[in-house]
């Protein structure tokens, strides 16, 4: 059995799955104590714990720690060399710029100064700082400055995070932010993981524990200990993965809508694979290198406040509380659905009373106004979905082949999950002029997404046969290679490295290795080829676990 738990801001969903069967589901209110909430959610499933062989959590812990700035003070040691002034990316006094410069091919121009590093580290230690992040420019092409700084200071601190281990992608400012957040939320995450392990043990659950990441994949608890920053924004990822798990047509391009009370999250699945943010996700106003599913959140949900601006009906972007028909203060789309007789759980009389003033001001029939409210809400979502698709289609391409053979993303169908999804589905079909599927169990789709997500990892390999060097930053590999190494050999080396480090990377189930990017360039100097510059990105493919998709 697999247990998936999605701890959201207001509700926590839990689901227990065996094979392709959903054994139990539960929905409880999220409490202040997340460990207790987890205990309660598992309890609410009323299942036999002995059969659990995998537990997956999606939490708001690191997301909230960052957005609410509730993290430990962390130090940063950054070396940059020439370029945009890195101090513009520093946001506390504990960021320090030190000497050192590496160029785009990973060649050292200015060495680090150990005395300077030690001096900076001493200062941080005196301030009582226990965690330090280390970042150098182009460290994904040559991690030696980050690793040398680390070896100079690691004994002095409880933990040191190195930028190159968090992502193989180029982007120095994002590397600084990502490494800082990773360092800062690490103590919070470590304490949390320990408490959860203890709580599970007390319940008699001995299964491995996984965490959901922003890219819709999972990783083991020990990997989450080292890379807590990757668990940010796992909530929206859970809903997209839930939609994927419940999707009945994996060949289609599916527009995913997770319609909640306050907002609707929009995403796209192309042939069963969610569209990712190309450079990394944003959090708390900062851009990071964390690989994540592209999700657009729009302020239109079932409980959005309905108001009048002149003769125009407005839906959202704010929520005042529950719908009027459930005792809330303002009219909402759910009230409109209640008036239309679609939402039978609500008190229709209260809904009529809430919408009547709007109908009165417009001088229109209350049913007509209710229909308009719903269609305006759907319009808001459709407009944002259109922008989302446009953005994806604007992703630049860099080869003539791709220019001449553009892959235009155009959804064939809509899939809606979340509370009001089933009620809104006929309206969505009409407005989008597409089929809108609402899966069974859409209410606990997020927990399903967590439960069923595969473990995923991505590694980046850069091989420069002229410099005879191969770097894989995520794994900390820095190897001498033969000047005749070929792309095929690099692929073999990468696959081997991915397998050898599976447990370290938090991959426990068998995953299909796929190539994300592959480029080979001849390095030509003085009119003759002096080597090859090869770039390769490998991943274990995101998706839902085999037992579910194959059963």
């Amino acid at each position, binding site marked *: 059995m697999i247990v998936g738990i999605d701890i959201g801001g207001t509700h926590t969903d839990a689901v227990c799955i065996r094979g392709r069967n959903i054994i139990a589901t539960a929905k409880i209110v999220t409490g202040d104590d997340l460990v207790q909430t987890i205990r309660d959610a598992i309890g609410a499933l009323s299942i036999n714990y002995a059969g659990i062989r995998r537990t997956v959590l999606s939490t708001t812990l690191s997301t909230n720690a960052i957005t609410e700035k509730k993290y430990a003070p962390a130090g940063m040691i950054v070396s940059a*060399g*020439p*370029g*945009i*002034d890195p101090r*513009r*990316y520093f946001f506390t006094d504990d960021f320090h710029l030190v000497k050192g*410069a590496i*160029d*785009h*091919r990973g060649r050292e*121009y*200015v060495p680090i100064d150990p005395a300077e590093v030690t001096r900076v580290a001493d200062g941080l230690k005196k301030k009582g700082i226990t965690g330090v992040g280390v970042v150098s*420019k*182009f460290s994904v*092409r040559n991690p030696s400055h980050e690793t040398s700084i680390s070896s100079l200071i690691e004994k002095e601190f409880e933990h040191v995070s190195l930028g190159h281990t968090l992502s193989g*992608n*180029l*982007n*120095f*400012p*994002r590397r600084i932010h990502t490494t800082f957040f990773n360092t800062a939320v690490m103590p919070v995450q470590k304490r949390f993981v320990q408490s959860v392990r203890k709580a599970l043990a007390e319940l008699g659950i001995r299964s491995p524990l996984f965490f959901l990441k922003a890219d819709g994949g999972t990783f083991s608890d020990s990997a989450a200990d080292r890379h807590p920053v990757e668990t940010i924004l796992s909530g929206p990822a859970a809903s997209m993965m839930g939609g994927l798990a419940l999707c009945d047509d994996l060949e289609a391009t599916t527009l995913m809508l997770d319609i909640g009370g306050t907002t609707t999250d929009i995403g796209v699945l192309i042939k069963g694979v969610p569209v990712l943010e190309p*450079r990394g996700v944003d959090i708390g*106003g*900062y*851009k990071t290198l964390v690989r994540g599913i592209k999700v657009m959140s729009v302020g239109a949900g079932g409980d959005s406040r309905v108001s009048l601006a002149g003769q125009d009906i407005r839906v959202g972007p704010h929520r005042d509380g529950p719908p009027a028909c459930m005792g809330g203060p303002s009219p909402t789309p759910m009230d409109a659905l209640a008036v239309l007789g679609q939402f039978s759980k609500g008190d229709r009389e209260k809904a009529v009373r809430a919408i009547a003033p709007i109908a009165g001001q417009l001088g229109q029939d209350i049913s007509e106004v209710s229909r308009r409210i719903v269609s305006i809400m759907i319009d808001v979502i459709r407009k944002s979905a259109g922008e989302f698709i446009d953005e994806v289609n*604007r*992703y*630049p*391409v*860099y*080869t*003539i*082949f791709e*220019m*001449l053979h553009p892959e235009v993303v155009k959804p064939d169908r809509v899939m809606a999950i979340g509370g009001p999804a089933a009620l809104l589905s006929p309206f969505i079909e009409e407005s989008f002029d597409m089929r809108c599927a609402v899966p069974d169990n859409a209410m606990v789709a997020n927990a399903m997404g967590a439960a069923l997500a595969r473990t995923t990892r991505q590694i980046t390999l850069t091989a420069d046969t002229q410099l005879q060097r191969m770097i894989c930053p995520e794994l900390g590999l820095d190897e001498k290679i033969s000047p005749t190494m070929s792309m095929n050999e690099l692929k073999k080396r990468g696959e081997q490295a991915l397998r050898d480090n599976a447990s370290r990377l938090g991959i426990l189930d068998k995953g299909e290795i796929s190539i994300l990017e592959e*480029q080979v*360039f*001849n*390095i*030509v100097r*003085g*009119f*003759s*080829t002096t080597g090859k*510059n090869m770039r390769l990105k490998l991943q274990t493919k995101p998706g839902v676990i085999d037992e579910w998709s194959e059963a």
Partner: protein
Amino acid sequence: MITAKKKTGLIFFPAYDWEISPSHPERQERLLYTQDQVMEEGVLDIEGITEFKAGLATEKDICRAHFCVPDVESRITPSHNVSAGGCIEAARLVMEGVVDNAFALVRPPGHHAMRVVHGARGFCNINIEAVMIEWIRKNYPHIKKIAVVDTDCHHGDGTQDVYWHDPNVLYISLHQDGRTLYPGSGFPEEFGGPNALGRNLNVPLPPRTSDEGMLYVMEHFVMPVLGEFKPDLIINSAGQDNHYSDPITNMSFTAGGYARLNEMLSPHICVLEGGYSIEAALPYVNTGIILALAGVDYSYIREPDLNPARIKEDPRIIDYIKRLTDTLLDLWNSRDNYEVKGEEIVRRSRNIFYDTDGISENQQESVRVCKNCSGTYKIDSSASTGYHILAVHIPWGACPRCREQGLAWFEKPGRNNYSAVYLQDMDNDEYTVKIP
């Protein structure tokens, strides 16, 4: 978080699957390290700097700027459609007000491609700036006067040729002296055609000119001239081979100097031209130009191996440049004193060599001297490929007499063994080919 003062659009198209030949300077690897540097610096995350997808220039777009012999299709590859299309996209973004300025970081380049195209010259098949300029004029007729400032190290003889007779396009080229570098042209006396005198200005700089000399010319010549010409649009042909590390030229410009130049010029559109120091120059020069366009501090952008003392120019070079600037200013100031008198048709004859493709061409050009418009012209062109064509150009805003003359040349080519006769009629946006 850094916010740009100006909204800047970036069209990045490195054509990772196109090369002239595997070891040619114009090869896949050319913009690889530039992309690495731009990505690593997080330039695209700066609020206000946005990357846009390139477009595809159509045959119609190309035929507004060129007579391709025998036709467009046989003279270009899809890479040229994309690099010219990238420029058009940059122009569209600026013209529609989506951005304040834009940089088309595209390849292959174009400034050696002339009005008539028999093949590739100086790595260029079609003139991507000219294709863009004609697209702008077609779609935004309120843009009357355009200035192209070409800061590539090689004289942009192609752009000079395309606009030789056009008084509404001011072409200023700063380059290494043609006596020391390809294509061997670009001297002050190349001053524009009879209807466009003073609209073609060449600044041949001595080898080893560095930032100081180049910026002196910008400040004391280019900027004052632009101030008088008052263009509606400024374009920088942003070649980067004046860099001290460039393998095929002899200048000493730096990334910081290029950034300062663009800050001073403040162009609406930058188009990448040459520049073959792909590791030591391009990554830093391009980053510097993007930041300068966006109005972001570029003062820390520097080549890791920069040694300012080593590349500082000899004081004699600065003296020479100062004297050259004075001469050029005198020439510019006296531009209205020159006039072609007593002749209705002015003819010139010349030989053009296509170094990349090894083709030689002979041209007999006739232009109608006209006070009312840019003047129609025809080119009789025969090439070593065997083609012998006649090309007639009726300019934007052609006066009735020039239109009549142009049409007459097209209708009655005068001899009947041309392989083809072409007509470019700008105002009617028509391109006609007649095979006798």
